[in-house]
């Protein structure tokens, strides 16, 4: 056994079963008597449902039941709840139109579920679903943000005027206006953050069961089973929580899209109760495209006021954010508290004012997707900084250095609510520039020109916020959930350890990282530690995994629980060794009497705790098991510098990323191999957003990129070797000092890529281009500016 504690690059323990196909996913589960559900979805963006004739479907072979929205309403089933309430500038609560489980009266996006057919086999259900006769009256639809916000646009919800969900703001408008009035330069930029479709490798699936005693079990592809139990049990199906168990077993990727409570979970659970047979639904990939919550989709205008030397004086931002047709579970929080609060970035801009209007459209609901608001903020800021450099002629690196929050300024209060605890932006900048050989770029550009290629280099110095917290502040800002995490740690009689965590792993590697924490704190070998997650029947009420929170919040809860274990163990050890509790030290898995050679191993203490023959039974309960809830005092603030280098073929407009360096401050690193994997994956997604991915709708709301034939996922040959480094400052307010690494790659990389593309095209007079920077977009820019260049 080598070193397995904090800092060890231990190979992921879970990968063995995944690599040989022995993972256990929802679709792998099959129950005796199981039925199959198939959901008939809308193929039109916006239409009234005048009638549904189910008779032919209901009579089809193998069909057990057909349900429509009316059946759910008749049974008192509620709509899907939204977990975050935003208030508009004028104090009014956001528009929160009903989100029916199955459409009632109207469909509002392609993919909106209309009816469910439940049959003995999956293909019988699918065959019968085609026999549903739905009488639609098409309505004009709207997919584009600006079009939906314009006067006279079709209304997605008749009762929501102007399609406006909320019109929110943050910051000191008067201070910003005053700064603009005295500014030497004002630099303006309009930009779009493109809509993305998550595409987790495992499509969503749900299996509902109900036993004779009325106990329900839902097995589902979720990142947070307790949240689903609470939302579905309390708000949708009205099942008391003690009679509802939610299991999220192995889950093949989430990226945010599996946080939310989806209609299909409620449908299979409710139908299982009705039919007293298990009911399973698994998405086809085309359903994933039109029913998993999408990400991003902002249109923004930004303005920076500067003094003569290029110091940022004030930032003014106005953003339209697409909510889609309904409010997904945490959608309202994304373009507000996860976006506008990040607009200070790594810069000491003294005044910031941001307005955000959230708009309904006839598109799939939009919610948090890897980064959730912070990529949109980082893209806006880091593009704006490069545009400022372009417009003012100040070197882009010097401009960043001039405006960085200095390393000695922490804790640093931003003008948009957040208080950063730690960071050192110059160190990550310099490390990334060195690793990317920024200084050697001119020679590489010259060599590329000789080969007929355009070459550019770009950077982003980004910041993000993880582990959204604390609960009472989030609650004041509209959260309808707690944001703590919980761990229960059970030391077994012979000294092995089971951790029951409220965090959920769907690719993050918790079974390894969390076990390393136990190795470090309790001195138990890795193979003596088991991590249990994902089953509300086993774990305490936890909040799950999203927002890069698992280690910073869930890991901290584990540390707190282990502190309690050690404290109790010391009292047992003191009794066994006839010493004072104050004299007991715990180190390397053993309790020692200070200054003596007397010691007891953890296993001896746990044995005494469970077989309390010689035990301080008058003052101490038997057993060695502790639970801790940890509610963070603040967000954590990872940040860093990403450098991207690209080559463009001017004839075709094709961009190749030729080098990428990410140097991130993620706080304390538990497993550097897992951190590197997280950053690599995040950067791959960020390069995908920057160059390839775009959810395309026509003006009316028909989805044009509804399959992998048209939605461009990044592939291995789109990606360079990605160099990952860390330069950490520690988080000052959690016991581990960790900040989180799950999203940094996807947040820092898109602006670095686009800054490099713009740099490569600078001879063509390009100041900005929106993502994705497709070959045709770049070719068109080159075409449009070629005559100008020739004339010069």
């Amino acid at each position: 056994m080598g070193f397995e504690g904090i800092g060890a690059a231990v190979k992921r323990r879970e990968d063995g079963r995944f690599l040989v196909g022995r993972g256990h996913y929802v679709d792998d589960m099959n129950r005796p008597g199981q039925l199959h559900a198939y959901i008939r979805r809308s193929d039109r963006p916006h239409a009234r449902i005048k009638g549904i004739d189910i008779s032919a479907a209901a009579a089809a072979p193998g069909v057990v039941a057909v349900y429509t929205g009316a059946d759910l309403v008749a049974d008192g089933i509620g709509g899907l709840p939204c977990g975050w309430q935003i208030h508009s500038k004028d104090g009014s609560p956001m528009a929160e139109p009903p989100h029916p489980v199955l459409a009632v009266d109207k469909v509002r996006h392609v993919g909106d579920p209309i009816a469910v057919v439940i049959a003995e086999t999956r293909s019988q259900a699918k065959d019968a679903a085609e026999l549903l006769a739905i009488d639609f009256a098409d309505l004009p639809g709207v997919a584009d943000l600006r079009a939906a916000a314009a006067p006279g646009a079709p209304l997605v919800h008749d009762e929501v005027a102007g399609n406006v969900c909320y019109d929110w703001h943050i910051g000191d408008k008067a201070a910003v206006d005053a700064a603009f009035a005295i500014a030497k330069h004002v630099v303006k930029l309009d930009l779009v953050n493109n809509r993305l479709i998550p595409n987790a490798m495992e499509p969503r699936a749900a299996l509902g069961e109900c036993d004779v005693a009325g106990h329900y079990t839902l097995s589902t592809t979720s990142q947070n089973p307790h949240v689903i139990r609470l939302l579905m049990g309390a708000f949708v199906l009205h099942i008391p929580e003690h009679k509802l168990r939610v299991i999220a077993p192995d889950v093949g990727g989430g990226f945010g899209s599996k946080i939310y409570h989806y209609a299909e979970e409620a449908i299979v659970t409710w139908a299982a109760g009705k039919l007293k047979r298990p009911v399973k639904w698994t998405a086809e990939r085309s359903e994933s495209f039109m029913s998993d919550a999408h990400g991003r989709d902002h249109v923004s205008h930004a303005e920076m006021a500067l003094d003569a030397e290029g110091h940022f004086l004030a930032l003014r931002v106005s953003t339209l954010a697409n909510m889609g047709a309904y409010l997904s579970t945490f959608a309202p929080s994304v373009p507000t508290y996860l976006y506008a609060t990040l607009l200070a970035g790594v810069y000491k801009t003294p005044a910031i004012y941001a307005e955000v209007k959230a708009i309904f459209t006839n598109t799939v609901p939009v919610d948090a997707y890897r980064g959730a608001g912070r990529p949109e903020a980082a893209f806006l800021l880091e593009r704006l900084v490069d545009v400022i450099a372009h417009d003012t002629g100040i070197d882009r690196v010097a401009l960043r250095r001039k405006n960085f929050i200095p390393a000695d300024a922490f804790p640093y209060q931003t003008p948009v609510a957040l208080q950063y605890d730690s960071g050192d932006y110059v160190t990550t900048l310099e490390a990334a520039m060195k690793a990317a050989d920024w200084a050697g770029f001119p020679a590489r550009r010259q060599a590329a020109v000789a080969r007929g290629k355009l070459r550019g280099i770009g950077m982003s110095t980004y910041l993000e916020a993880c582990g959204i917290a604390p609960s009472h502040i989030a609650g004041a800002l509209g959260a309808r959930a707690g944001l703590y995490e919980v761990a229960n740690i059970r030391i077994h009689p012979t000294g092995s350890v089971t951790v029951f965590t409220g965090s959920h792993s769907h690719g993050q590697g918790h079974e390894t990282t969390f076990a390393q924490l136990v190795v470090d704190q309790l001195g138990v070998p890795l193979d003596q530690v088991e991590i249990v997650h994902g089953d509300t029947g086993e774990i305490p009420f936890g909040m799950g995994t999203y927002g890069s929170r698992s280690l910073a919040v869930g890991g901290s809860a584990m540390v707190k629980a282990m502190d309690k274990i050690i404290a109790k163990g010391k009292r047992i050890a003191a009794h066994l060794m006839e010493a004072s509790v104050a004299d007991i030290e715990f180190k390397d898995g053993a309790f020692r009497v200070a200054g003596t050679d007397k010691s007891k191993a953890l296993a001896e203490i746990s044995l005494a705790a469970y077989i309390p023959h010689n035990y301080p039974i008058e003052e101490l309960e038997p057993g060695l098991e502790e639970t801790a809830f940890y509610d963070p005092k603040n967000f954590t603030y990872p940040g860093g510098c990403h450098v991207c280098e690209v080559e463009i073929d001017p004839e075709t407009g094709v961009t190749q990323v030729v080098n990428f360096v990410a140097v991130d401050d993620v706080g304390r690193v538990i497993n550097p191999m897992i951190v590197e994997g997280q950053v690599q994956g995040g950067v791959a997604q960020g390069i995908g957003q920057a160059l390839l991915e775009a959810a395309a709708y026509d003006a009316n709301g028909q989805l044009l990129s509804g399959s992998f034939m048209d939605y461009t996922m990044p592939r291995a040959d789109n990606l360079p070797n990605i160099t990952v480094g860390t330069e950490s400052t520690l988080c000052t307010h959690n016991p581990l000092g960790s900040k989180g690494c799950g999203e940094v790659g996807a947040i820092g990389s898109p602006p670095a890529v686009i800054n490099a593309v713009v740099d490569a095209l600078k001879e063509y007079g390009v100041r900005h281009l929106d993502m994705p920077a497709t070959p045709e977009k770049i070719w068109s820019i080159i075409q449009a500016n070629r005559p100008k260049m020739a004339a010069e």
Partner: protein
Amino acid sequence: MYDFAYQKPGSLADAVKLLAADAEAKVLAGGQTFIPVLKQRLNKPSAVVDLAGLGLSGITVTANALTIGATTTHATVARSAEVKKAIPGLALLASWIGDNQVRHRGTIGGSLANNDPSACYPAAALALGATIKTNKRAIKADDFFQGMFTTALEPDEIITAVEFPLPVAKSAYEKFRQPASRYALVGVFVAKGPEGVRVAVTGAGQGGVFRVPEMEAALAKNWSPEAVAGIKISPEGLNGDIHGSAAYRAHLISVMARRAVAAAG
């Protein structure tokens, strides 16, 4: 997919008989397009007639022709020493179709019979002046392709082999991949052989694969990249979609043609 009767005839005659007897029956070769289409329920055949047992695979070379059996996979063509020697552009084209799995199932006959407007093989067949042999007759490539997903094949007609005339002095293929599907957004095959100098374009045309007479004339006079570099293609009649406008495709035809000629040497 919908239910259908699966038929695996042991002879070409039996296969033809099954097709002739049932207008709703469809032919299955490698299935790399057809099976996804069935899975998406875009096609509802009564029966699927599998050609796998008919012995239609194989590559033969004579002085005058390279003949590839209809159910020969792309992988077999790509790695064939005979194909690489006789028509290197054809082997290269096969090596770029789909991914490794697709290349080991997909067949040349299936690709030509489907005539997907973005498929690669139609460009090679047209540029090389191939003859498509069926159970009934021999069809010149110029007569075979009749528009998007449409060919000269009759309902009970099965491709048995594709014959490429030899010797081929020059051959090359350049493909600009549609970024998501990796099909040809624009693919250009250039060739100089017994059928003359030919340039065939796939991916770009609304009516499927087509020839470019101006480029052919220029190359016949002077086989060099410069000869085609200046020839502008009209966007009229070309496809436009979220991956590329007609104007962009038109531009790419010139670029791919020039690069193909350069690669052909």
